[in-house]
């Protein structure tokens, strides 16, 4: 910080002193009088400059220098309303803002670290590899809009031969949605050991969830139950998006409403939801998804929509494995949305009767 080595105040005082001496010497040489008056004027000027300008400015600059060289600095107390007061006030405000920003940055780093941990925890509960289930093959994935998301899917196998596959979507996204998603994931996993139907699982998950979340929060969900012994597929809807069923024999994609009501909306949904069987023949494909897919917009604001998703299923399902169908739909989706920012979590699960 070389520029701190030179002081404009010192230079000004020196210049004034030299000027006074030259002027005094001149007057003395020509007039031979007034030397005493000149000396008094000189001394008074120097004292005034020191008290009114040099000392307060030195204090301000000392603190500024400390700030700029990363040394400890202090708040400047000044009652003055002149230039020095403005400088002191400016310094105090700047340092106050810097301190606040520093605290915000530290807090931001801490939160980012915690979000990363949360993201890791969430990733761990999303199935990374697809289990081997007699009679069906499947593939699915979830992509959150931020570090952590409110979409969920899971595959739970029970010793009784029931295989539960569900997709859930909590209102909004981010931390609040992720906490609810984790809660539901745990409840469903736990209850799957106790209950033997999708209906009981959904009704009791809702009963527990409703007591723990605020009214504006809820989770839509559709739960499939593939029973290995029966070789039958059942579904229980809780206010979720439609189920797409590709019928290989007819080469058409059927759109079925899931029905029910979203989890967490009312305390008792036992009269509203029901478990129903879906005819699921060899070669048929079932696709579950979250609204993040159909409500995703492209650069012109147009939504991907159910029709495009259905068309993609019809185009690829007949010749694709679940993973291939997933990839093909993802490609179509990616081309459609382009560089548009992902605003909501997206989940897609493909189930194939093999």
């Amino acid at each position, binding site marked *: 910080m070389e520029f701190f080595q030179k002081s404009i105040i010192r230079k000004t005082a020196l210049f004034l002193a030299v000027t006074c001496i030259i002027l005094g010497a001149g007057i003395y040489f020509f007039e031979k009088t007034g030397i005493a008056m000149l000396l008094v004027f000189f001394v008074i000027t120097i004292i005034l400059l020191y008290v009114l300008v040099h000392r307060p400015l030195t204090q301000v600059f000392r603190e500024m220098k400390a700030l700029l060289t990363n040394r400890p600095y202090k708040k400047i107390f000044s009652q003055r309303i002149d230039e020095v007061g403005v400088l002191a006030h400016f310094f105090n405000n700047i340092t106050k803002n810097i301190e606040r920003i520093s605290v915000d940055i530290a807090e931001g780093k801490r939160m980012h670290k915690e979000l990363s941990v949360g993201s890791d925890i969430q990733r761990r509960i999303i199935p990374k590899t697809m289990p081997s289930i007699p009679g069906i093959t499947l593939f699915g994935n979830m992509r959150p809009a931020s570090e952590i998301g409110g979409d969920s899917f899971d595959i739970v196998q029970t010793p009784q031969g029931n295989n539960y596959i569900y997709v859930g979507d909590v209102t909004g996204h981010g931390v609040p949605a992720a906490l609810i998603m984790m809660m539901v994931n745990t409840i469903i996993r736990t209850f799957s050991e106790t209950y033997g139907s999708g209906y009981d699982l959904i009704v009791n998950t809702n009963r527990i969830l409703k007591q723990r979340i605020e*009214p504006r929060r809820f989770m839509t969900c559709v739960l499939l139950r593939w029973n290995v012994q029966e070789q039958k597929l059942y579904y229980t809807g809780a206010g979720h998006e439609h189920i797409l069923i590709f019928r290989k024999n007819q080469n058409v994609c059927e759109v079925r409403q899931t029905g029910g009501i979203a989890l967490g909306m009312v305390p008792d949904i036992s009269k509203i939801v029901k478990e129903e069987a879906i005819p699921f023949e060899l070669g048929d494909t079932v696709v579950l998804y979250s609204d993040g897919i159909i409500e995703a917009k492209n650069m012109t604001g147009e939504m991907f929509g159910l029709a495009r998703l259905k068309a993609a299923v019809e185009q690829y399902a007949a010749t694709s494995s679940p993973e291939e169908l997933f990839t093909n739909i993802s490609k179509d989706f990616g081309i459609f949305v382009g560089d548009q920012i992902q605003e909501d979590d997206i989940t897609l699960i493909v189930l194939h009767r093999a």
Partner: protein
Amino acid sequence: MALLTLKFVTDVRDEHYEVVEFHGELDQSTLLNTEKQMGEFLEPFKRPVLIFDLGDLKFINSEGIGFLVSIHAKLRKKGQNLFLCGFKKNVADVLGVIGLPSLIPVFPSVTAAIEHMKSL
């Protein structure tokens, strides 16, 4: 960015209800302002029925539905009722999929909602 305008319609001849018209889109981008406006409106609101006229609501997502559910819950706590009416097809589809009509009464029009209220 989506826009939403609320229009508060008070029937000076009937103190049993008040209508709020929604014009625009109800999603995360319009939610904060809407919640603020509704919060201020609901504070002194004493009438037994509040009717949301969603006839000019062009889009609603799950966060918008969460907002409707929270208003319903607030009113029920005070013994008041929320009625929803007049939907466009896409909005009706979303509300139907989530199962909202099982929770909040829905009507095809404001007139139908008022008639239902009078029949209670």
